[in-house]
């Protein structure tokens, strides 16, 4: 074996690809309509599922009459919750490390009581989706409506209706965090307090491809095959096996192209579980593809937080502490298996994390209600934590008359102060808050923007500039889920195989949902091993053919999956050079692999990889009998020593408020991101931009509106506002690269920072614009109505 890997050997090689803006190989396929999304899968004898869903937010199910439906031509089967209960066990979304979290057993189809509008109650299987929907109309369900728990604050009132009467209250989880002595800090002379109530609306992912599945069951082998649009095939394998009482190895989960996920398609949805059960009962493939209405009333929602928050600051600009009280509504159950307490937990962990805080106090309460379940959606908890902390920071800056950048620079952790911990005890290393903010101010030309702002105000135009300094949780270790008993791998594997033609076939347990996972895996393998990029073929998303691992979520694909690939490619290179050294009658340390050939260290070609591989595979008789070539290598990687690897960044938003209409226009956004080593800047920049736009959606447009009786009101894409091209600004992205020391690759995640940070920057920009009018707004989305209401309140 050679000595320890040197980073310079890997990253400065002749045919390096790490760090290059290489276009994705799979773009051509998607651009020519050759994608294979789950609704593109058609199998012989396949039938289609549709669901009768509860029209009530909370109701007792008195009776279900399926006779007319069953009699309809084309209908294959109709199942109620009771019918399926004999074939699938209920699930409970709790984790042992979330101490005190409780939830009730959940069935794929509601039994006896429906607890949100949209909960599946009856499943209809027919020879087409259209016929299944027709038959749903013929199924008669008699409901006795019950009072619904809707607003978060009211859920804990002593006389509140109980979502689960056995629990005696609607409290699902509560956590307290205390560091230092916030009361003493706030009482010190010279400390001034800003206090605000923040509201974050409920929103949802609106993946353009809706959820769906095609499940096939082969009774001869008791084998379930699930075509899955999602992020965690191995997790779903365990869940299907566990709840359908199948051997794990008899469940194959295949995830081909996924039309967006963002955390939406990584949970246990009753309609998808029911589809698998139906396939088993019918012994034939069953397809379920959610329509858009079903997406809005069943895809997980997120946010829905109400916080009271305070920050203390001295006149000279030292932040002495933050005190928050967060309450969030999660729907009637905690989502299985990741739970619905994680977002609140993240808010408590992350609020103020970029800053030196001696004193911090937080309380979080998670309550049940009769709305769609909420759970982990892109940037879990980050938009709330960042908007609360940085909203208060800029509020404090206004209070003491200090520039918001100057106040941040005074309180952000110093770049040379790591490793260290945050106020909440999070382990931090390799961060660059100060450098990121300085670079941001430079690329946006801050001084010129301030001058423009003053000039515009003189003309009655109200522009605002807002900032955020942020952290992002990436590369999670087993401390994230595995420790709590969830069947979720935190390690991932990569296999690299040299084929007879001299190409590499690689596979990985991380998954592709459009981020470019497959592209960066190929770049790493090609560059580290030594072949041209187009000679690497990638397989992901299949439990039968890839190594075992967690998938792509929590911004872990590049950092964890990429490191496993780097190590596997390094191992294969060593193995190939061992073979080459024997064939060339030299020693391994005199050889390298470059551009598909074994070379001398000066780059002189000695033999092609195809020659080597063909000799090994076809003419092994030419090799010494004691040489046992292995032209395949697998390595696994997990993060150790840290619960997860933090990234940091700084962003600024430039906006204009129309004080007549209340409309907020985002003029430009700048982002400086430190995700460690950038594997492909073309892809990373798009991740940041797409994330920022999703964050702008949450800040300005997106909200799930409910009626007083718990009906979601805006269940079409015409009514639920998402960011479209015309409203979105151009976004300037720059990088600082501080590689993480937890891996050789040094990559941290980059998938969620934009969504986590943009709402704070937009909030601050809006309040910066409103400030001269004496108004401020602390509720998202910042709709025209809310802006006008804030202006009206200030004027009266």
């Amino acid at each position: 074996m050679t000595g320890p890997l040197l980073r310079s050997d890997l990253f400065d090689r002749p045919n390096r690809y790490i760090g290059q803006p290489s276009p994705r190989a799979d773009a051509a396929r998607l651009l020519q309509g050759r994608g294979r999304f789950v609704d593109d899968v058609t199998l012989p004898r396949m039938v289609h599922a549709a669901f009768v869903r509860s029209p009530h937010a909370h109701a007792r199910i008195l009776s279900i009459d399926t006779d007319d439906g069953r009699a309809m031509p084309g209908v294959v089967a109709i199942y109620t919750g009771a019918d399926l209960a004999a074939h699938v066990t209920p699930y409970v979304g709790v984790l042992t490390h979330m101490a005190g979290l409780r939830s009730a057993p959940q069935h794929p189809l509601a039994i006896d009581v429906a607890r949100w509008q949209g909960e599946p109650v009856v499943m209809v299987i027919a020879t087409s989706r259209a016929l299944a929907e027709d038959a749903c109309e013929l199924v008669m369900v008699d409901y006795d409506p019950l009072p619904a728990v809707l607003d978060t604050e009211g859920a804990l009132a002593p006389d509140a209706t109980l979502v689960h009467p056995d629990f005696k209250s609607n409290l699902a989880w509560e956590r307290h965090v205390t560091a230092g002595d916030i009361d003493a800090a706030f009482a010190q002379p010279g400390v001034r307090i800003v206090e605000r109530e923040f509201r974050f609306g409920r929103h949802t992912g609106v993946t353009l491809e809706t959820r769906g599945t095609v499940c096939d069951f082969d009774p001869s082998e008791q084998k379930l095959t699930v075509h899955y649009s999602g992020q965690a095939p191995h997790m779903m394998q365990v869940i299907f096996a566990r709840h359908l009482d199948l051997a794990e190895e008899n469940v194959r989960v295949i995830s081909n192209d996924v039309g967006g996920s963002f955390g939406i398609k990584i949970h246990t949805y009753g309609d998808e579980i029911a589809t698998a059960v139906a396939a088993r009962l019918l012994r034939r493939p069953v397809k379920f593809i959610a329509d858009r209405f079903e997406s809005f009333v069943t895809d997980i929602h997120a946010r829905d937080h109400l916080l009271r928050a305070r920050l203390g600051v001295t006149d000279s600009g030292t932040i002495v502490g933050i005190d928050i009280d967060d309450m969030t509504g999660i729907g009637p159950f905690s989502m299985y298996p990741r739970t619905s307490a994680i977002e609140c937990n993240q808010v408590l962990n992350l609020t103020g994390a970029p800053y030196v805080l001696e004193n911090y106090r937080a309380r979080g309460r998670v309550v049940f209600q009769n709305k769609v379940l909420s759970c982990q959606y892109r940037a879990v908890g980050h938009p709330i934590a960042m908007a609360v902390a940085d909203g208060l920071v800029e509020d404090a800056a206004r209070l003491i008359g200090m520039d918001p950048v100057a106040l941040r620079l005074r309180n952000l952790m110093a770049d040379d102060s790591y490793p260290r911990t945050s106020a909440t005890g999070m382990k931090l290393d390799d961060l660059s808050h100060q450098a990121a903010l300085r670079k941001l101010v430079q690329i946006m030309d801050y001084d010129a923007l301030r001058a423009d702002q003053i000039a515009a105000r003189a003309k009655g135009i109200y522009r605002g500039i807002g900032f955020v300094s942020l952290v992002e949780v990436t590369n999670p270790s087993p401390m994230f889920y595995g420790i709590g008993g969830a069947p979720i791998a935190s390690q991932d594997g990569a296999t690299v195989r040299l084929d007879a033609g001299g190409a590499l076939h690689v596979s990985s347990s991380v998954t592709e949902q459009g981020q470019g996972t497959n592209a960066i895996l190929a770049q790493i393998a090609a560059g580290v091993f030594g072949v041209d990029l187009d000679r690497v073929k990638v397989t992901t998303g299949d439990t039968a053919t890839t190594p075992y691992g967690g998938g792509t979520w929590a911004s872990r694909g590049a950092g964890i999956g990429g490191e496993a690939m780097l190590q596997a490619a390094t191992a294969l290179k060593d193995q190939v050079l061992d073979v080459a050294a024997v064939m060339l009658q030299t020693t391994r340390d005199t050889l390298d692999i470059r551009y598909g050939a074994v070379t001398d260290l000066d780059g002189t070609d000695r033999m092609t990889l195809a020659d080597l591989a063909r000799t090994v595979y076809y003419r092994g008789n030419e090799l010494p009998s004691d040489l046992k070539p292995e032209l395949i290598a697998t390595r696994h990687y997990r993060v150790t020593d840290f619960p997860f690897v933090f990234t940091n960044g700084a962003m600024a938003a430039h906006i204009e408020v129309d004080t007549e209409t209340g409309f907020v226009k985002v003029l430009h956004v700048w982002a400086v991101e430190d995700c460690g080593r950038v594997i492909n800047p073309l892809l990373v920049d798009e991740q940041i931009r797409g994330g920022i736009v999703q964050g702008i959606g949450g800040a300005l447009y997106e909200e799930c509106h409910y009626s007083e009786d718990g009906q979601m009101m805006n269940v079409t894409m015409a009514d639920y506002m998402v960011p479209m091209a015309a409203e979105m600004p151009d976004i300037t992205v720059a990088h600082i690269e501080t590689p993480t020391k937890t891996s050789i690759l040094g990559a941290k995640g980059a998938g969620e920072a934009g969504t986590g940070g943009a709402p704070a920057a937009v909030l601050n920009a809006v309040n910066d614009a409103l400030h001269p009018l004496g108004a401020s707004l602390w509720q998202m989305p910042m709709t025209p109505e809310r802006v006008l209401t804030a202006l009206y309140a200030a004027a009266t």
Partner: protein
Amino acid sequence: MTRTATISLTVNAELVTATVPVRQNLVDFLRHDLGLTGSHVGCEHGVCGACTLRVDGRTVRSCLMLAVQADGCQITTVEGLADQGLSHALQAAFTRRNALQCGFCTPGMLASALSYIDAGGDADRDAIRAHLSGNYCRCTGYQSIVDAICDTIQESRP
């Protein structure tokens, strides 16, 4: 509700005759009956743009058109885009600019972009953004799509 009708139309230069339920959307016919799964379904009411394609040279939301209405029409889906000329240049620009992530919006995005370029649209970012406002993309943030369209226009009009 199970009434059918027989239609004849040209899809990607191929003559097709089929008997379809009269209530079936054009996009469902293309996807499920003809196996042309490149056109996608995102909302089924003409808002998201994922099913956008060309019918007789006009840009159409194929979830808002019934298959029976396409009787006698010439239809071009993403699978039928030429592998040279403008559509090829646009696809190359999308690749170069990484103007797609999950790729679900992409066929519709290409159709809308081609209609903009064909109509003589300029490399004007605001105008392009306005034109694309009926095509939802959750992944990219749109900027790279605008970049790709600008590139294609500038390359095609020296």
